[in-house]
């Protein structure tokens, strides 16, 4: 990689530059709105109101946020090991299978709080299993994990359609979905919590899996920054060669990081499957696995950043629905455009503004150093 021109203060590295990148992404999104012939400021106003202006809107925003926390964490854990897990979509889809199997086995006999731990295990296990093969192939046979996880997304889609159509749908039903879970397979909604604050959540599906999501954040923080394995994962991600010399097995680290990543992606299924629909449906992930890429990049692969980025994308998803209602010219696909621009500017073009900022800082600190920098760059 190209070495940074000058060492920048930490707040610039983790604060200013990421913020600048994301701001540019949103400014370009504003230009797209302008191009369609609508007023971007008006659009932002409708969007924010739709996401946070009333109880039901907040409920939906939190529901989407929960999905994106899980998938964002999944991408982030793989990032720390230097791996790009693009297969969150498929891993979450399989996680749904684990969730549904646990729920259908238990829902008629026990209350939800007994089902939940089993569903968590099922979701994590199935998600991790779907990440295991690409992880093994990357670690042992050197096949590129990006390509294999993309392929596994498509294989997962075919597999799940086959299972849902031919095996999991109840006899006599033409719908490609499982039976509806009984009360023991339904997670309680957050409506009660909303009422304590005098708000009405309406039909919004926010449920207690957001607590699981926040617990997963804490787990990831402890795991990555406070355990020996996490240290080995970060070391491998930063410099695989050095890690090998330090006695770290890259094979082990690749597989462990991908298993944790797949498990986190699989957990995402709790929210829509048990929290919202109480059944497993075709294509329930709806791109959340891919949003995780944008969330992880924007949140700098740190749990705190991921929660904030997931909340922002949750707002976009819910507010975008309101926006499509009020401004028919701007359909919900606008969110996909914003997501793409965030990935582009916060990911692929992440260093675009660094030289400029470095020069500005050098100019401010000492004119002589700035001259040296300019000379150094020209040479």
């Amino acid at each position, binding site marked *: 990689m190209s070495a940074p021109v000058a060492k920048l203060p930490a707040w610039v590295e983790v604060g200013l530059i990421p913020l600048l990148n994301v701001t540019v992404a949103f400014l370009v999104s504003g230009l797209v709105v302008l191009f369609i012939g609508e007023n971007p400021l008006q659009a932002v106003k409708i969007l924010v109101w739709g996401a946070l202006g009333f109880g039901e809107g907040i409920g939906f925003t939190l529901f989407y946020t929960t999905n994106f926390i899980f998938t964002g964490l999944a991408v982030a854990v793989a990032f720390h090991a230097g791996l790009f897990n693009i297969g969150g979509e498929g891993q979450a889809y399989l996680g749904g299978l684990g969730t549904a199997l646990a729920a259908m086995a238990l829902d008629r006999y026990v209350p939800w709080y007994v089902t939940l731990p089993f569903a968590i295990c099922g979701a994590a296990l199935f998600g991790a299993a779907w990440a295991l093969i690409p992880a093994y192939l990357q670690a042992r046979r050197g096949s590129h994990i990006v390509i294999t996880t993309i392929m596994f997304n498509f294989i997962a889609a075919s597999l799940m359609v086959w299972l849902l159509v031919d095996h999991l749908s109840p006899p006599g039903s033409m719908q490609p979905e499982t039976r509806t879970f009984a009360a023991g397979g339904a997670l309680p909604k957050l409506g009660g919590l909303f009422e304590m604050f005098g708000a009405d959540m309406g039909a919004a599906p926010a449920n207690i899996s957001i607590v699981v999501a926040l617990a997963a954040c804490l787990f990831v923080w402890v795991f990555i920054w406070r355990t020996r394995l996490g240290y080995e994962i970060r070391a491998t991600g930063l410099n695989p060669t050095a890690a090998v010399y330090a006695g770290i097995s890259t094979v082990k680290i690749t597989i462990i990081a991908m298993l944790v990543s797949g498990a986190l992606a699989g957990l995402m299924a709790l929210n829509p499957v048990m929290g919202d629909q109480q059944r497993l449906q075709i294509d329930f992930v709806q791109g959340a696995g891919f949003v995780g890429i944008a969330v992880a990049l924007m949140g700098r692969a740190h749990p705190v950043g991921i929660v904030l980025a997931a909340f922002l994308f949750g707002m976009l998803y819910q507010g975008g629905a309101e926006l499509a209602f009020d401004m028919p010219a701007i359909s919900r696909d606008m969110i996909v*455009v914003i997501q793409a621009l965030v*990935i582009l500017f916060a990911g692929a*073009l992440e260093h675009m503004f660094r030289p400029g900022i470095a020069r500005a800082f050098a100019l401010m600190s000492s004119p002589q150093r700035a001259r040296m920098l300019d000379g150094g760059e020209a040479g």
Partner: protein
Amino acid sequence: MDLTAAVLVLDSAVRLATPLLLACLAGLYSERSGIFDIGLEGKMLAGAFAAGAVAYWTGSAWLGLLAAIGAAIALALVHGFASITQRGNQIVSGVAINFLAAGLTALLGQAWFSQGGRTPQLSGDARFSSLTLPGAEALRDVPVLGPIYYELISGHNLIVYIAFLMVPLTWWVLFQTRFGLRLRAVGENPAAVDTAGISVPFLRYRAVLICGVLTGVAGAYLAIAQSAGFIVNMTAGKGFIALAALIFAKWRPWPAMGACLLFGFLDAVAIRLQGAYVPFIGEVPVQFMQALPYVLTVVLLAGFIGRAVPPKAGGVPYVKER
């Protein structure tokens, strides 16, 4: 299966393989120069939308094709800027381009045409129609040869023939010209190319541009040759199958054609086999046939049938020594 049915399946295999082949060759140029491109899907989709929209406005398939190439080149340049000039992560950039195309085409389609993201139906000169090769009518009734020539070889639209002509052309460019030699070299060892006094970025930008042109043609084929207009997400993973075919072909033009025809054939068979019984196997789930290209690619990547080794410098940004 009798001859007529076999010819019909092969005929639809050719039609289904065409967009794969164009996208696969597009990826071949880019990846041979050391720029990984998982954004083939997005560029095709953008091309398809531009073709559908412009062909509708102007009534000309040719202007639609030009617009498709322009749109795909625009995205290719974004990818080039991110991965060559800014030395960003090529995978991340490709992901961004896929989403950008998916979002923008649906968004603009809805804003401009209000048909749920589709472009209006095209007819007449706004589409590329089937060509009848000379002598096809006359030979039609000749046994065996007649149906093969009439159905399988004749009767496709222009882009199908362009796609298959691109295969020898690509082989010639890559392996018989100076540009091709340099292109392959820059994907294996850019430092050596640089030492020879040849600009690495300029070479890679040209490869990325060729990739844009070919994905644009592939998109135009989908929207204004195979179908009569753009449909939301009409590429439906074809860009990724093309990528799989590229790996399957080990980054070589002739095997690329073989892989694309194989995947096109699987697709054609899957459509015909829906719910049909196959002797000795029983009912093959259609989802199995759909997943087969991906499964085959994974198996190949794992090195169980031959070994797919990508260009050495692929995915690594080139930093000139200071």
